[in-house]
């Protein structure tokens, strides 16, 4: 069914070769990831749900203090965690795009940015499923109501997308010259995740460490996303625009870096 939907979208695209190309590679990429085994798309749902369950269990049963007086803690966790996983996936996969798509770069003159874009879009498709799973859980288990605030959601997702893409493009350039960046990266991601307020608000931390949280752009993004998805309250426009500009900046920087420094990719990868 999903295959058909994706195919239908590709038929409806305007006849612009660049769109078509980016979409086709994204579609094929997505298919490759989820249709190659029997459970297929099920994994796309299962993985985030299981992760949320584990963290939820830890913070509600083992470390009660953390989740005390946070209303709807399950959703609080779920909403931010899928966003974080989306960012992580986009940037981690972007890092290896040039290696993965070497077969195309070698054979046909191709704009590298297109490859990155289609990689991001294929992750975005997966993320949409996660959001859908979230909505189902929120509506059925938590009786959450959504309002027009939902209109902000695309902007916030776009912000995440820009950040992930930009960061991923920078990573992929570093990856060409230093391939063991992989190991360092996981530690970096851990650091960012724990200071981004995925698990608890920054106010819960002792004052000394709070600046660590405040310089993390994800803190604001997650806060706004929760305002839209969990608490149905107005979002902080100021923080949103600030974060959006950061995202845009990272994205532009990424494109610049890729255009300037990846010409050695074929030799080193």
């Amino acid at each position: 069914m999903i295959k058909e939907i994706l195919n239908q979208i590709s038929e409806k695209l305007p006849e612009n070769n660049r769109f078509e190309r980016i979409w086709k590679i994204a579609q094929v990429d997505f298919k490759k990831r989820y249709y190659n085994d029997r459970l297929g798309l099920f994994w796309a749902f299962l993985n985030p749900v299981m992760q949320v369950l584990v963290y939820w269990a830890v913070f509600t049963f083992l470390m009660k203090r953390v989740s005390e007086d946070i209303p709807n803690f399950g959703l609080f966790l779920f909403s931010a965690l899928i966003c974080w996983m989306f960012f992580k996936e986009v940037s981690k996969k972007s890092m290896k795009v040039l290696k993965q798509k070497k077969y195309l770069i070698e054979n046909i003159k191709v704009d590298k940015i297109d490859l990155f874009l289609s990689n991001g879009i294929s992750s975005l498709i997966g993320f949409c499923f996660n959001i859908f799973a979230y909505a189902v859980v929120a509506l059925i288990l938590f009786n959450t109501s959504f309002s027009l605030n939902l209109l902000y959601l695309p902007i916030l997702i776009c912000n995440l997308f820009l950040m992930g893409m930009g960061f991923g493009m920078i990573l992929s350039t570093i990856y060409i010259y230093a391939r063991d960046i992989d190991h360092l990266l996981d530690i970096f991601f851990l650091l960012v995740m724990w200071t981004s307020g995925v698990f608890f608000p920054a106010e819960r931390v002792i004052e000394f460490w709070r600046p660590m949280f405040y310089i993390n752009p994800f803190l604001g993004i997650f806060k706004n996303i929760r305002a839209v998805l969990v608490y149905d309250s107005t979002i902080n426009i100021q923080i949103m625009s600030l974060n959006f500009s950061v995202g845009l900046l990272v994205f532009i920087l990424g494109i610049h870096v890729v255009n300037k420094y990846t010409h050695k990719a074929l030799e080193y990868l």
Partner: protein
Amino acid sequence: MTIRERLQLLFSKKNSQSELKALSNVNLTISKGETFGIVGRNGSGKSTLLNIIMESIRPDKGGIVKTKGKMIRLALGMGIDPNLTARENIYVNGSVIGLSFKRIGEKFDQIITFAGLEGFVDTPVKFFSKGMKQRLLFSIAMHVETEIILLDEFFGGVGDQDFKRKSDEAFKKVIMEGRTIIIVSHSLPIIAKYCKRVAWIHHGRVRSLGPAETVLKSYRNHFKKTKTK
């Protein structure tokens, strides 16, 4: 290279890797509609030259590459993602080259019939035999409107007799259509058969450039000399 290796290099006494200049001082003009051959021994820089023509590698110094038109390179085992089906590979390759889906759809049946893969349209390419992969790639290149085709050691053993005949015909037709073709090959008969002009690359430099007969003759002589030595 990894960070660890870089650090090791930094602290070891012999602190520079010897760099090999793959190519230097290469000046070539290949005009539209020409079938151009490149010969040279293993490691002489032929494939690097193709990479530079493709602009997938940027030369360190100077080296301005100007090409007009869409390009595809044919080489063994390249250009095809083994995890995708034949159909997907055709669409990905076609759209990256610059064709619209509509156009690819029109060409699709031709490509499949020419490659003789009628029963395998939705089979992942990893289950194909080597010959089938090669036929698929060749067929894409022949039917998709690229102005420039680079053949990197592609000839020799492409498919069975029947396909050889077919590919020979298709290839001649493509030449007649006025597409530019650059052939890199160790098989001198093939170069002699198709190419009017040939460049001989030796240790990263153009050793000689000119009409096929003269260049190939001196190339053969060079081999004979090194043999007798």
